[in-house]
């Protein structure tokens, strides 16, 4: 993190940075629909398109947090609606495990969020975006401790 701040306190001018992984068939299209409907929402999220929420490797979420994201949003199709039948269920399973692990690492639960948003639910997308930004703004910047040292030494040990 480049900014210096007091952990846990609201920082003036703090703009949460959110990485969003949206599935190609539902949530990405909901975001497109929000656009064509000219809905307005907070500009904090950066969307990365994946074909299915099942493609979201938990490491993507970890990497985003390590790179300085204050929150990660995963958007998929509603249960039963997955374009690939069950990818969203796989995403849900990983999400639960990941959230438990991140909580142990000191990352607040509200920083990662999984939402089912169908292609027709532009209003839900807008609301989720706004809500998440507000919640993370209240939490303040994330401060995931990432060790600076590389893993090379560790690798040598394991070899």
């Amino acid at each position: 993190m480049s900014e210096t701040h007091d952990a846990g306190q609201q920082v003036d001018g703090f703009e949460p940075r959110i990485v969003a992984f949206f599935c190609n068939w539902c949530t990405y299209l909901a975001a497109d629909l929000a656009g064509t409907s000219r809905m307005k929402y907070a500009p904090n999220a950066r969307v990365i398109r994946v074909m299915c929420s099942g493609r979201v490797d938990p490491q993507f979420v970890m990497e985003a947090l390590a790179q300085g994201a204050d929150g990660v949003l995963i958007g998929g199709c509603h249960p039963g609606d997955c374009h690939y039948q069950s990818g969203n269920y796989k995403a849900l399973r990983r999400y639960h495990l990941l959230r438990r692990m991140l909580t142990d690492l000191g990352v607040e639960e509200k920083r990662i969020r999984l939402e089912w948003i169908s292609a027709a639910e532009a209003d839900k997308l807008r609301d989720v975006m706004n809500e998440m930004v507000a919640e993370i703004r209240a939490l303040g910047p994330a401060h995931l401790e990432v060790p600076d040292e590389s893993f090379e030494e560790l690798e040598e040990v394991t070899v």
Partner: protein
Amino acid sequence: MPEPAARTSGNGNGTPRIGVYVCHCGTNIASTIDVAAAQRAAESLPGVVLSREYKYMCSDPGQEMIKDDIRDHGLERVVVASCSPCLHEETFRTAIADGGINPYFFQMVNIREHDSWVHKDMAAATAKANDLIRAAVRRVRFHQPLEARRVPIDPKVLVLGGGIAGIHAALTLANAGKQVYLVEREPSIGGHMAMFDKTFPTLDCAACILTPKMTQVRNHPNITIWTMSDVVEVDGFVGNYKVKVKHRPRYILEEACVGCLECIDACVFRRGKTPDEFNLGLSKRKPIYIPFPQAVPQVVLIDPDTCIEFRTGKCKKTCIEVCADRNAIDFTQTETFDEVEVGSIVVATGFKAFDAGRLPQYGYGRYDGVYTALEVERLVNASGPTEGKIVLRDGREPERIGIIHCIGSRDKNTNVYCSRVCCMYSLKLAHLLQEKTNAEIYEFYIDMRTAGKGFEEFMLRVKSEGVHMIRGKVSDVYPEAGGTGRVVLQAEDSLAGMVRKIPVDMVVLATGLEPQPDAEDVRRIFNITCAGGGFFMERHPKLAPVSTFTDGVFLAGACQAPKDIPDTVAQAGAAAAEALALIDHGYIELEPNTAYVVAEECSGCKTCLGLCPFSAITRVDGKAQINPVLCKGCGTCVAACPSGAIKQNLFEDEEIYEEIMGVLAHV
């Protein structure tokens, strides 16, 4: 022409030469995003040898610019920041291929739908655009040359729903020489249109224009009609769907029945005792019956819930006696299934009329004189329960009739949308009722919505025929004092500025159109989306009105939104045309986004095997192997592979990590 610059290898380790293009989209993007600033920011990104802004990147000059730059500046990767990839990814990929490099050496950045259209603050929107462009530039360096997968299109088509939409789509396709399966859940095709008497605004007789089409469907060598059937399972993908259809028993052998209807007369029930579904309960039918005289197929059916043989097993079975050696009756029939392979599907499941009982203030089900519009369609119909005579439930002929518009439409307590057809059918019913009864007719409307060819003229005609138009919503329906059998309609006349209380003999409720009650199940089976109150969602409201987000599945008729017969037929024709375009193209190119296994890195742990919903992964010699034909590219196995041995084309781990780092990088 300048000498092409030296090219570096495009494997992601070197630095390929990247060109970035930022689109203004007129003012759609440029009014919220500082395009020039975004273009300058892109210029300084590693690997970017050229960055341009242009008013419309998707225009021919925009595309030509990319092609020329590829040739003149030796571009090896291209990033275009403009609209959603759903709109123009294909456009730019084609342009890039024309320019001479692999079309997948391209990444699109959505700065319109996801940015300029949803934000107001220019600084924030521009910062977002910069982040997204940076991510794309970092990502595109890792793109691999790929080839689209081609799959052939099965020319057969399944049409779900045998109303006018399904009939028209099926006929269009069949006339073009395609094999069509028309699946209808009722015992006859025809849908709602078969129930109508006349159609607005021309007053053509519905049966006169529909039944010839129904007969054509029956006789068409390319159409297989499956009535009393439901689609229970759809598998596969565009061009190659496998559809499982369930046939409910009719207890009649369709091939053997000649439609003589003698069995109905012979039935041990002397009179009908069961409310007739086709006449909405206004008449009674026997356990063996035909839905309506022009039914297609012209075959009777037995209702096992009321047939004595089914209930007691002790019937004289006079129906079998009279059927004699035709032997068409079979009490042992059970459900059967068919599995067919089709390349495309037209969903035309229609609508359900709003249930007037949900609004008790209008007295439906409580007062004998209150009817729904669909019931009145049957009453005025010559083949209806009263043979076209307007006789009320209590046997009287109405002298005063009130028609109430917008029942279940334009009301936040029920449906907010306008059902589009009710104003016009109410005017039509006013005309028909007046013609048949000479009654005084009062139309209570909120707004008279008569947008359509010949619609306004029809309204003026009905008005000139003496129908009273009262602008106001009826607030109460109550019985007239003195036991006259009449009810009083109370409404505020908002033009005259007074409350009117008009006693009438008959009330017609202009019920709106709702999605079918099982639209949700149909949506699931076909993997399509619902919007706006549960109607199926089209791919694009303007430019892809009959397509869905599932390739090869098309929509027609009122299942997509309330619409009248002309619009339904037009849409059904469009759906058929889209299916034909797909079929006649012969093949479709699929995104080459399949997963693959790097065998050396696979530990054979089998984690992936159970994850694949398409059984595309098998274990061969202790290693996972992915069948690219079965893989649909969801990437679930890629995310799960503990040793990182599974990769996905177009969505490689490195590409996504670069995007993550790109959007979060500090400038």
